């Protein structure tokens, strides 16, 4: 085996100087901007705008030279971990490699300089692209049609719940509850609430799966549907999904698929075939569009045929005989985005899908699952799995024994990993696992990287025995050492002006 490769081995994140804010770099009178010469007569503002609208004092922004602007943001970038620097096994987030080709596609002015309000006749390429993406997402999920408008996963969830609502309402059916397993991601219950439903929480059984009996007990004619992610947030496949689907459908409910974990089943299992009616996808996870430090994402929602008429509009559609146009479904719930969704993210995802094709996507899922299982097995003695069996694309491990024996918590392990040059796993999620550490290696990390990650974790576990205090204070070699989160919430300082006071 060659040397470990996935570590941020050059330790870009070490060091002990802070970077001043841009406001601290500001010097009155300095500037960087350059504008075109227009030769438009330089009339005074007050010549054409009434005084009562005019600001009396300029908005004070930072005043820096272009050189300082570049230095500042380049240095900030050196204070930021990223996929391109090292392995990022953050569970539930699918931090796989983002192909640069897809970014190049999105940088084409032929795509990104098109105004969203131009008539369809001027944006035929875009409409074709959107139709192609919609078709492919439907093929992947086993659904009939999709909206591409939602800007992220949570937006997709809420859109899906509004579709659920529209469907029931069209049937004259007033339903009030949506079921959610206790392992669900936080956005699920929030979306349900905003969708105007009440949440009924379904407990997990001792295998980490939906307790089918509890589910059945909770079902009734007032149940609008259930939201599930499968594999669930424990990385485990809901093996009784067919029974679940039957039970929910039986009472007239719909099944919503939270596609955040779609990476596990791409080309192997389709949500439609499991009985789901509504599926959102996180293109910024499964389809490798980069996450941008917290967005933009894209959360298209695909639905089975009985829900198509409710989809948001306008949607790009193929015209018989050639060409594309915008069309809005008859009983559309309306727009869920100011324009057509995060178009440049959609373009990247389509490029990703086109490169892979069906077979390539299947390989993605297979190797994502392979990597997660290998890591789980490799760490068996160090951090046992919360549920000890084959997992899907991620595994939830627990640091309970380290806490009990040495007082080292999951958080300490996570922070220790930062010092080792890896990003931490997701901690304390899902809530139902004690000292949870959720690892999602993704398919783009190599065996060598996984081995290196596992060794680092072993080193941390060793250190827990001899130097638990050290781990409580980890990380120290990062741009800042352990951050006082409580303090930030106690005295909120959300702007430089608040800081200055």
């Amino acid at each position, binding site marked *: 085996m060659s040397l470990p490769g996935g570590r941020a081995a050059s330790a870009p994140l070490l060091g002990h100087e802070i970077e001043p804010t841009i406001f601290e770099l500001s010097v009155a009178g300095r500037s960087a901007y350059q504008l075109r010469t227009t030769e438009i007569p330089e009339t005074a503002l007050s010549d054409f705008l009434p005084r009562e609208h005019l600001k009396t004092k300029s908005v004070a922004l930072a005043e820096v030279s272009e050189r300082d602007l570049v230095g500042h943001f380049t240095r900030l970038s050196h204070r930021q971990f990223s996929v391109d620097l090292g392995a990022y096994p953050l569970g539930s987030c699918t931090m796989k490699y983002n192909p640069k080709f897809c970014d190049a596609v999105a940088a084409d002015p032929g*795509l990104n300089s098109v105004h969203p309000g131009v008539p369809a006749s001027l944006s035929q390429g875009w409409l074709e692209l959107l139709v192609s993406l919609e078709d492919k997402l439907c*093929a992947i999920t086993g659904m009939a049609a999709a909206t591409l408008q939602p800007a*992220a996963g949570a937006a997709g969830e809420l859109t899906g719940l509004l579709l659920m609502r529209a469907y029931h309402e069209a049937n004259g059916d007033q339903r009030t509850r949506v079921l959610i397993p206790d392992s669900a991601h936080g956005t699920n219950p929030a979306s349900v609430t*905003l969708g105007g439903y009440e949440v009924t929480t379904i407990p997990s059984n001792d295998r980490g799966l939906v307790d089918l009996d509890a589910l059945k007990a909770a079902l009734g004619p007032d149940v609008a549907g259930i939201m599930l992610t499968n594999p669930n947030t424990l990385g485990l496949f809901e093996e009784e999904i067919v029974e679940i689907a039957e039970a929910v459908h039986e009472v007239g409910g719909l099944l919503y698929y939270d596609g955040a974990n779609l990476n596990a089943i791409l080309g192997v299992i389709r949500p439609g075939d499991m009985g789901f009616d509504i599926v959102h996808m996180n293109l910024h996870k499964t389809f490798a569009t980069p996450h941008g*430090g917290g967005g933009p994402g894209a959360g298209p929602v695909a639905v089975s045929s009985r829900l198509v008429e409710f989809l948001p509009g306008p949607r790009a559609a193929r015209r018989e005989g050639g060409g594309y146009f915008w069309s809005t479904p008859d009983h559309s719930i309306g727009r*869920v985005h*100011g324009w057509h969704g995060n178009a440049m993210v959609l373009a990247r995802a389509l490029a990703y899908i086109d490169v892979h094709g069906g077979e390539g996507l299947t*390989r993605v899922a297979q190797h994502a699952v392979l990597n997660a299982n290998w890591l789980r097995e490799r760490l068996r003695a160090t951090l046992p799995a919360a549920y000890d069996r084959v997992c899907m694309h991620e595994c939830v491990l627990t640091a309970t024994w380290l806490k009990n024996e040495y007082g080292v918590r999951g958080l300490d392990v996570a922070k220790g990993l930062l010092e080792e040059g890896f990003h931490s796993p997701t901690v304390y999620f899902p809530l139902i696992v004690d000292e949870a550490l959720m690892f999602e290696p993704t398919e783009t990390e190599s065996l060598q990287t996984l081995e290196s990650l596992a060794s680092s974790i072993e080193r941390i576990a060793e250190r827990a025995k001899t130097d638990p205090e050290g781990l409580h204070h980890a990380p120290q070699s990062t741009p800042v050492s352990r951050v006082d989160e409580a303090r930030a919430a106690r005295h909120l300082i959300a*702007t*430089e002006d608040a800081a200055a006071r």
Partner: protein
Amino acid sequence: MADYLPHTLEETQQMLSFLGMDSLDQLFAHVPASVRLAQGLDLAPGMSEPDVAAVFAAYSAANTGQLSQLTCYAGAGAYDHEVPAVVKMLASRSEFVTAYTPYQPEVAQGILQAIFEFQTMISRLSGLPVANASLYDGATALVEAVNMAAGATQRHKMLISAGVHPHWRAVVKTFARGTGHEIIEVPLKDGVTDWASADPSDAAAIVAAYPNYLGVLEDMSAVKALSISSGGLFVMCADPLAAGVLKTAGDWGADVFVGEGQPLGTALSFGGPYLGLFACTHEQIRRLPGRIVGETLDSNERRAFVTTLRAREQDIRREKATSNVCTNQTLMAVTAAIQLGWLGTQGFAEVATRSARAAHYLQNELVQIPGVSPVSTQPFFREFALRLPRSASGVLEDLVGEGILGGLSVESLAGVSDPSIDGDTVDVVLIAVTEKRTRAELDRYVEILRKVLS
């Protein structure tokens, strides 16, 4: 077959052996066979990157509305502003592009500090003390504002000026299906909201736009007065660039500012990703949707940044949450911070001034053309609506033939009839002008429109 996997065949085999398996299929053995795909996906085979590039080049070529081909006067919330190479370069640094949400602050100070700087800038240009780390876009930011107002007032009635962008109004209505808010659109007269026509009592929010989507500058003190009398929050939707010359939301006494941040460094991008801006008063801070970055100290007492007040967020309060936003538009927020850093105090004012000046120059010339009249006689910022002697979409098509994207037809934005326009919308065109337009371009627009209409 192209993909981005590192696994050699031997390695896959080796890893399977380690698991006591001999095929990849076995990893899925616990999945009921009935839900497993027998044949694989119904998708074309994978293509290499250069082959896919050729497909995308065809999409690109089919978009005849690219800015390299047309001079742009389209606006309605999406504007053709200068974004310099330096901003694009910095915003595309891969540390920013390929990071996740800053969950581990010790290794995410880059994004966190950039957002802190962004929040400061948005706070200043909104004139309100706190801003969040971004929302999806202007329209969905307004949805959050309306929800915030409901939470603050425990009321559900929302008065929304028809001067708010038609798409935003549509989005608010869509999401009101879930929250059950009552959305009341207040019509415009001569481009200005006819607040007198609405009953403000029990309103949770009074929502106005400044400038409104027709570019008109309405008197916001009237809205403030309504909000005081009704007890509803004053939500001001504003073009963020307006603060370069015009009073801010804070100056007008608004409780909440929402805006579309696209003008702050983001390409037109066929409508997304854009940038939802949100700022509010201290009173509403615990209801602020989305993420917020706060300043704190690290264990060595050095300044550090971290996402904070997460109790407001869905990931903690769960079903009690008033917002479900998780992933937002961070990279656009970082971009906006860079763009505003590039502009600085003076450049920001200058872009706003030049845009307004050019818009007035053009409007003044266009209304001289026989048959062309302004929809409103009120003051405007850098966008204006004109009534043409014939269908706006037809005229726009003729202009495209001359290399001019002459604006947007209000019909395409708002439908044939809309409370923002007296009479039908078909002949109304909305024209936006940015600092990029030269006098020669503006003069040519006038000349060509005159020709097209004659």
